[in-house]
Every structure is written in structure tokens, then in C-alpha cells.
């Protein structure tokens, strides 16, 4: 059963919402039902795929085992490093074997997202924000397996998730969440099943043809724009449905998109696109890397430090999508653009003109084109064109 794609998923989700609504409106706890529903949904998802189910079981054993071991001495740097390495090992093995042989080892649908959740808990244990006393195994398991966001996010944070579980929701408030959840789910369905599906029909990747230059360019641009629109409506639609289901289960899953095509620059774009991924990388990669570089004085100057950290952050984002030329190029491309944006925004020219309407309009337009060019890298359209030009 595919999540958010198969009729059986939608039918079962309706049942989950119905039972949740009864429990929530009676002010009864929702967690036990949510955990049961999540496990049942995952059993159906992995039914007939023993390798994936065993990989998930191995992943859970490694992450629970290493987290408990870390919580024994949470401020230890070497324990934290070892625990994180153990937790990300299945994802690294999976991504590398997929790119080398096509069929991945140790993988399962959702591994990329659940790995982020495990690492967040471990790094916050190191920071002293999560202690053995706060750690509840069932809450942790529910956090990892929470079915609305298991497959493709949004990437929630354990302490925020735990706060939702820990409180009794008054009836009026739950009724509001339920109504909002159902509405979000329906809007998400229209995004994904109607608009994204229409945009996908216009997405016709092809090699550069023999026609006149402008005609061929127009074909490639139409292809890139329709892919970008498809990607947004598909992913934002999915994210809205996930948020909607979560709300019905009493969990305020964070939003993942905020009108990304209105971004005024690349930094603003990453505050609006796949927000839970970019903020995760900001908090757990960028900020920590900058702190390390600054404390050890490894790089001269604040701008160079920021640029290096942005490049590393975005390269990791690309690699996380997959170890392929297209994804690495996508990560590097955004890393370089973010580094250039950081430099540009420190210039006297930017400070003088940043509020001029003409500058803002131009900046928005250029950002939009750069974003869609990035999608053409992400989709493989650019590598198709490069291969065509090189006759390989």
C-alpha cells in the first residue's frame, strides 16, 4: 500500500480520522490510537516486502539501542559521535548501494526522513536538552513511526512532538484542529491529485532537437517550468495532507512550504521551500559547523566562514537526496548560490538598494529563474541536455 497514492490508503485514513474524531471530541487521549494506527499502516505499507520490513526493524534496533546508550552519558562527545554514526549507517549504506548497483541495501521507504529524527534526538541529548529522565520509549517510538509524516516528512522535532502528546486537548480546541486538519487534507488532495497531475502531463523531457534555436529553448523552458510546478504542488500537497492527518490525531505537525515562488532571494527561498528540511540542516549542520569553525578559528573572516558552511550544508542536502550526479549538482548549485547571496547581501550596493521597488522586483524575478534552473538540475533535465550535447 503506497502512502498518499493508493485508494486503500485514503480509505484507511478516513477510518483513522473517524476514530480520532470520536476520541478527540470525547477528550480522550489520542496517543495509543495514533501509535496503533501508525504500526498498522506501516505493516500494510511493508506487506510483501520482507527486506524493507527487516531493514526497518534493524534501523529501529540500532537507533533505539544507540540512543539509550548515549543517554547513559549524554554529554560525551565520543558517545554522541559513535551513536550518530551508528544511526546514519543504514542510510549511508542504502544511498551508496542504490547509486552503485541500482538496488539499495538496508533501505525502506521513509529511511531518509526517520534518520533525521533519530539524529536530532541524539544531538540534543549531547546539548543537554534531552535527558534519560525525559526519554519515554513509547513516545520516541511513536515519534519515529508517526505514519502521516513517515514516508516523506515534514520532519518534526521530538521535544515539540512530545509537548503535543503530553497535554489534554480541550474539546473546542480539538474540534478546531479537526476541522483545520480535514480542510488541509482536502486542499492537499487538490494540490497533489489535480494540479500536480495536470502539471506532470506538461512535463515532457526531451533532448535538444533539430528545430530552430528559440523553438527548442521554448520547449526546454516549458519542460523546466512544468516540472517545477509539478514538484511544488506534488510535495506541498503531500505535506498538507500529512499535516491534516496529524492535526486530526492531535499533533501540530509543522508546515513545510510558505509560498516559495514569492521568495525575494535564495535565502528567503530556503525559508519557504521544504522548510522542515532546511531548518533542520540550519540548526544541526550549518550552525554547528559555523560554531566549530569560529571557536577553532579554522577559517579567516565571518563571510568566508558563512560561505563555507553554506556550501557544506547544501552539498549535504544534495547528497541526502541521493548520491547521483544530478542531486550532487543540485546541492552544489544551491550552495554556491547561497554563498554568493551571503556575499552580495554584505555589499554596500545591497544595503543601499534592498528596499527599492525596482530592486525587489528584479531580485524576485532572478531568484525565480535560478530556482527553476535548479529544478532542471534536480529532475535530470540538464544532465539529459549535457549528455545530448556530448553525444554520450
Amino acid at each position, binding site marked *: 500500500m503506497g502512502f498518499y497514492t493508493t485508494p486503500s490508503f485514503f480509505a484507511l485514513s478516513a477510518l483513522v480520522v473517524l476514530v480520532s474524531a470520536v476520541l478527540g471530541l470525547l477528550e480522550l487521549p489520542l496517543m495509543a490510537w495514533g501509535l496503533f494506527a501508525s504500526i498498522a499502516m506501516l505493516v500494510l505499507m511493508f506487506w510483501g516486502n520482507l527486506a524493507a520490513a527487516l531493514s526497518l526493524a534493524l534501523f529501529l534496533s540500532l537507533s533505539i539501542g544507540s540512543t539509550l546508550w548515549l543517554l547513559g552519558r549524554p554529554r560525551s562527545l565520543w558517545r554522541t559521535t559513535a551513536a550518530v554514526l551508528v544511526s546514519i549507517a543504514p542510510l549511508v549504506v542504502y544511498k551508496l548501494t542504490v547509486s552503485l548497483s541500482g538496488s539499495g541495501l538496508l533501505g525502506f521507504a521513509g529511511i531518509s526522513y526517520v534518520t533525521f529524527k533519530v539524529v536530532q534526538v541524539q544531538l*540534543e541529548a549531547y*546539548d*543537554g*536538552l534531552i535527558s534519560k529522565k525525559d526519554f519515554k520509549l513509547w513516545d520516541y517510538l511513536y515519534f519515529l513511526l508517526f505514519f502521516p509524516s513517515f514516508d516523506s516528512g515534514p520532519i518534526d*522535532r521530538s521535544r515539540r512532538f512530545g509537548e503535543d502528546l503530553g497535554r489534554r486537548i480541550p474539546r473546542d480546541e480539538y474540534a478546531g484542529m479537526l476541522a483545520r486538519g480535514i480542510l488541509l487534507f482536502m486542499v492537499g488532495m487538490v494540490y497533489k491529485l489535480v494540479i500536480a497531475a495536470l502539471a506532470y502531463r506538461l512535463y515532457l523531457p526531451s533532448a535538444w532537437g533539430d528545430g530552430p534555436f528559440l523553438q527548442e529553448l521554448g520547449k526546454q523552458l516549458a519542460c523546466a517550468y512544468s516540472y517545477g510546478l509539478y514538484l511544488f504542488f506534488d510535495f506541498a500537497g503531500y505535506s498538507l495532507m500529512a499535516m491534516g492527518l496529524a492535526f486530526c490525531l492531535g499533533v501540530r505537525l509543522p508546515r513545510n512550504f510558505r509560498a516559495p515562488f514569492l521568495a525575494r532571494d535564495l*535565502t528567503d527561498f530556503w525559508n519557504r521551500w521544504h522548510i522542515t528540511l532546511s531548518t533542520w540542516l*540550519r*540548526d*544541526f549542520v*550549518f*550552525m*554547528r559547523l*559555523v*560554531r566549530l569553525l*569560529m*571557536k577553532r578559528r579554522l577559517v579567516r573572516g*565571518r563571510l568566508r*566562514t*558563512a560561505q563555507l*558552511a553554506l556550501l557544506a550544508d547544501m552539498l549535504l542536502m544534495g547528497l541526502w537526496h541521493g548520491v547521483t550526479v544530478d542531486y550532487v549538482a543540485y546541492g552544489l548549485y544551491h550552495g554556491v548560490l547561497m554563498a554568493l547571496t*551571503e556575499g552580495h547581501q554584505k555589499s554596500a550596493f545591497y544595503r543601499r538598494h534592498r528596499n527599492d521597488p525596482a530592486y525587489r522586483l528584479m531580485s524576485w524575478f532572478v531568484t525565480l529563474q535560478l530556482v527553476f534552473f535548479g529544478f532542471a538540475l534536480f529532475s535530470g533535465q540538464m544532465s539529459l541536455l549535457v549528455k545530448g550535447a556530448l553525444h554520450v
Partner: protein
Amino acid sequence: MSDTHDANEVLSRVLDLVEEVSGEDGLGSHLDDDLFSLGFLDSMAAIELLVGLEEEFGVSIAPTELPREDMNTVGKIATQVAARM
């Protein structure tokens, strides 16, 4: 009396630090304004601020310890620092 004095001193040192990392002068008139929405702080300046607070006050605040809305004004940052001193 001395608590008020200390609080004012922390506020003034935090203000100096925020002005230094944001590269903006005259933030004294924005003590309770959101530094992120005004464009005075971004992720880079925020982490510089955390490193600066550690060096200046010996106070360690992890990057995800506080939600942004608890660290978005000079006044709130000073309160968080004072609470940890």
C-alpha cells in the same frame, strides 16, 4: 538595587554584542523589536551571537535550546543570559 544594576549591565553588554554581530548601530531604540524580521539577525549572526555570549558571559545556549520567538529581541536575549548567570 544591585539586581537592577546587574540586569542593566547585562542588557547593555548584550546590546553591544548584538550590534557587533549584526553590523548595525543604534539598536538601543529597538530593544523589544524582532531582530529577525527587521533583518538585523540571520542564522549566521544568531550563531555568532551564541558563540559571543559564551565568550563574554560564560553562558552556553545550544542552537536549538530556545525557540526563535524566545531569542528574537535584545531584551529577551538579555533575560535568557541573566537567567543562566
